[in-house]
């Protein structure tokens, strides 16, 4: 239990520390969670870049920084829901690309863009249902199910919905252009969407019965089932939500880039999303973490990438530093919060 975040306290039994006063209070640095370590690293980097780089600490650059990782962060929110419920959704990028490109194709064919988007959401719901049913009822581990279904989803899309890889945003949809290029009080609209989505997911996880149940399932699925939680329907709805979030993010991508390229499926984006989630401190073993962790992970990656871009470091150097810093964060967490009996028994995912 020592590795748990405070946000899960409501679901977890009283902390062991309280139960055994003989243990005494540990020094502050051993009470640091991965979240606080990553936040600390992000802050240090932010201050470091602000001092050493011209034009880093300007409102324009900070907004650029946030905007550049907002897609990662929004996908992270969807991924977080699945991971907290002790699952994972590696199909998110495929669902996002196929769903939104299908909408673009439908619009090209004459359907109104709103109807096309509804169709895309329908597609996401079907995908989520299929994944959820396989995971919940056939009880195939989520990592294998979604790993296998990603190429299937893209294959179906590539076979039935589109053939080419470059798709432009429709030019006759005014609100889409506003979504991508307008600013309210100097802040891009896409950032407001990120904030709104974060609040919605936070509210869902924190205040709804389904949201709290996600923690229960993630923490101990068998116990949750014995207690009477509708475990299987909850697992299914978890994947429906992540698929729907994926399509919404796809819309933002289309709006901000004036189009989308299906080659996105072949990139490491979905693993970057997973990394943001894990780095922020949402353990793959499930049952802990929340929206705050996703935001911390996203900020960390954003500051790092933006700083390195401004420094004009080479691709290889960037990858090296990125991996090194992430490794440091993970090692620090393991050192400060040794794996306990519970995690070693249940393992990751």
């Amino acid at each position, binding site marked *: 239990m020592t590795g748990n975040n405070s946000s899960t306290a409501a679901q977890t039994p009283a902390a062991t520390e309280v139960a055994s006063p003989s243990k005494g209070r540990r020094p502050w640095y051993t009470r640091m969670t991965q979240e606080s370590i990553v936040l600390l690293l992000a802050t240090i980097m932010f201050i470091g870049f602000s001092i050493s780089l011209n034009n880093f600490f300007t409102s324009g650059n900070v907004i650029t920084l946030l905007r550049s990782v907002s897609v990662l962060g929004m996908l992270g929110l969807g991924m977080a829901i699945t991971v907290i419920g002790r699952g994972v959704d590696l199909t998110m990028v495929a669902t996002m690309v196929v769903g939104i490109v299908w909408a673009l194709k439908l619009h090209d064919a004459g359907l109104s863009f709103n109807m096309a988007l509804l169709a895309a959401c329908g597609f996401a719901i079907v995908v989520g249902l299929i994944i959820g049913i396989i995971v919940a009822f056939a009880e195939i581990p989520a990592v294998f199910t979604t790993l296998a279904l990603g190429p299937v989803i893209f294959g179906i899309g590539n076979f039935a919905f589109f*053939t*080419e*890889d470059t798709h432009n945003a429709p030019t006759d949809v005014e609100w889409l252009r506003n979504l991508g290029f307008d600013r309210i009080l100097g802040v891009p609209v896409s950032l407001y969407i990120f904030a709104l989505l974060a609040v919605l997911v936070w509210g869902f996880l924190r205040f709804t019965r389904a949201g709290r149940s996600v923690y229960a399932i993630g923490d101990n699925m068998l116990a949750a089932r014995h207690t009477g939680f509708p475990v299987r329907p909850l697992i299914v709805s978890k994947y429906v939500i992540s698929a729907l979030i994926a399509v919404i993010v796809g819309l933002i991508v289309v709006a901000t880039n*004036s189009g989308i390229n299906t080659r996105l499926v072949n990139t490491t984006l979905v693993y970057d999303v997973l990394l943001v989630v894990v780095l922020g401190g949402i353990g793959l073993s499930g049952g802990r973490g929340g929206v705050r962790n996703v935001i911390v992970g996203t900020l960390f990656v954003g500051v790092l990438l933006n700083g390195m*871009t401004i420094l004009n470091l080479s691709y290889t150097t960037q990858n090296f530093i990125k991996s090194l810093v992430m490794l440091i964060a993970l090692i620090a967490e393991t050192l400060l919060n040794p794996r306990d009996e519970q995690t070693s028994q249940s393992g990751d995912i």
Partner: protein
Amino acid sequence: MKKVLLSLAVLAATTVSAMAQDGIENEKRAAYLDQLAGKRVVFIPMNMNADLSIAWNAYVQRQAAELGYTIDLRDPNWSTEAGARALTAAISEKPDLIVLQNPDVQSYARLISQAQNQGIKLIQLNMESLTPSDTYVGADWQGIGYAAGQEVAKHCGAPDAPSKKIAITMGVPTAPVDLFQIYGFKKALEEAGGGFEIVSQQAAAYDPSKANSITAAVLQQHSDLCAVFGIWDGMDAGAGAAVKEAGMQDSVYVVTSGGAAAASCEKIADGTYDMYISYDARKQGAALNVQVAQLLQSKTPAGQDPVVYYTPNTRLTKDTLSPSSCWSFEDLEK
């Protein structure tokens, strides 16, 4: 006797006129069709969803159907390993010709020489391997970079240019397509007199979203940036969007290149790309067809006489754009 001669003359005249009316058979054509019919070509592109490969495939399939040879398409879907397996399988099947798109200069080098040693003719498409084969046909990457460099130098060397600062967006830093272009680009800048400053040279991994955030960050640092040069239109859509988002479309000159699919002409028309170096996929498809027909007829043993053909580049801007500058996927099926 006279009568006989006369009737013979009449007969000859009618035969000749009859022949003239029915036309004359071109025996060379018959031989041409005869040589091509029933031949087998294996086509291994890198994938089957990029605009280029869809266009090439439409062209080669159409000619094959017309002339009676077959094209077996093997799609490795971006995987070099799957491509190597497809190539190995193709070599063991001993087709008359292999058309191969290399992902880089190295990966298939040994398999290419293996195919040639076994007497299988091989065309390399759009990316040259270190090992030459019968033909390379495809884009002139260095020339594309050079043309882009000339245009950037012209624009940013002008007295009213905001500065001589240039940002470069690459795909990955090791891809020869990228490196050839960058070499040509920098060479053109140098020849134009120098003084240009490359303030950023970053890899966006062919991802428009990454190109977008990199360009956005660079624009924050250099508000007087003169030009953005990218190596592939699919990715540079993101770079162009970042320039648009920053409200700097008037001052920042965006240069990219691609196979002239309709999606790209839309971006030229709306000002996302200021200069577009087109290596038209239709021209590439036509050139490829010539090479396929030529090699299927040729009696020269495989690999005896390697040649290259670089398809021509066209510089497209909003002003030079015409309805035929780009092609749509529907056009390919017509």
